[in-house]
């Protein structure tokens, strides 16, 4: 497509089936302590897969 470019796939609802393990970080602990932003956390499961698959590179580092 020329005028609409997909930035993120519409798969949030699928994560209801695969998610919910509860191993990810509590959002407030990470940096803010006064505001609540959840979506900038990474999924602990996916991060683990990434670490296993990419020689220890984490999500955050690989986005550089």
């Amino acid at each position, binding site marked *: 497509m020329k005028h609409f470019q997909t930035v993120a796939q519409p798969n949030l609802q699928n994560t209801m089936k695969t998610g919910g393990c509860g191993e990810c970080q509590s959002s407030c*602990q990470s940096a803010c*302590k006064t505001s609540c932003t*959840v979506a900038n956390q990474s999924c*602990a499961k996916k991060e683990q897969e990434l670490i296993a698959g990419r020689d220890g590179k984490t999500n955050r580092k690989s986005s550089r």
Partner: protein
Amino acid sequence: MVHVFKALGQAVALDVASGGVYALDDTAYTALKYYIENPNASDADIIAALQGECDAKQAEETLSELHEMIDGGYLFTPDEEPEIKINTQGIVKAMCIHAAHDCNLRCRYCFADAGEYHMRDRSLLPPETGKRALDWLVKKSGNRYNLEVDFFGGEPLMNFPAIREIVAYGRELEKKYHKHFKFTTTTNGVNLNDEIIAFLNKEMYNVVISIDGRPEVHDRMRPTANGKGSYALIIDNARKLVAQRKQQQYYIRGTYTRYNLDFANDVLHLADEGFEQLSIEPVVTDPKRDYALQLADMPRIGEEYERLGKEYLRRRRDGRWFSFFHFVLDLTGGPCLQKRLTGCGAGNEYVAVTPNGDIYPCHQFVGRENMRMGSVLDGTFDESMQNYFKGNHVLAKEKCRSCWARFFCSGGCAANAHAFNGDIGKPYELECSLEQKRLECAMAIYAIELNNRLTSDSAEDNSKT
């Protein structure tokens, strides 16, 4: 629901229920916005809306792609209510341990009242109480492996020997119960020395150091007990800690107030000082204070986030990379919907423990009337209050149910809602406005950087052929 907006000059559409995010060019933006505002619009109406913006061929092309997006299920996903399964076993897996209800600074905006938490209590956490807190957490954590413990205050490093002892005890518990403690410390940096830095860098998964930005901005709000500025006391300590951590897993975390609505300069100052992981947060305080942010400040604050975003993009592109907490969005590997419903977990999976062993829903609730949940010393825990917090998920909040940002902020901060509206289910309006603006900037940044990467990859491929 679809949210269409422009930030940093980039048009973006968010399909709220599915999490789909799309970068739009100008014609797609006009067509989609028109369609949302006029849901019964015919194809001819949409083509007419595009007149003057592009030629007839482009308009037809845009219309055809819009149909493709809608028919393909990329836009206007129905807002069906997901099945909510939140922490059915009463698990607690994260804890804020108040190592010290005392502080060596007298920050003017401190919600913890210089460490006293409005309880006239200047005290240090006894190591034994900290150990009982870890025992309690392990017991309450069920089958969760990763347990988070943040040492907080006041200034936690005023009680460094206790932290060292509690961490050592935690490492023993890990082996015994097959758990992993992710310890973190939030500090003002004053007491950092070589010994403490080495310890923190060995044991702490994350370290948060409070610096507000430019020296004059920092010193105005963060004086020492004798009224002098604290910037000069901490900046070298912070640099040393960060260098020894090799720039990994830390945040330089500041607060901006009405005194520095040009806070982008503070973020950029910290970046200029060599820090790469930055978080500058809006002050949350009594609206009567002269430094309190007001709703009327939002247009100015919005412009400032835009200004910061543009410079952020420029620097990252030019090799001066840094990360700003509120511009970081993990759109492909982000949290699952279950997590997005529950938010920060305060009072449910996350609690705070005071130096005398009392349990509160989170650090911000400490000292507030009727918010004590129990004690790690006598094992009491108010499960009805835990259930009350558990039920406070984003879809239970009237205001959030119709908000496009609901699966990104997850309903906001319960402590702020309680402080400003007397109800954990009624979000604090200014926080919502700030969150929405930051999210728009973050999505635009994500879209622009993705496009830059694709363009550069394609140029590289072309040069190889």
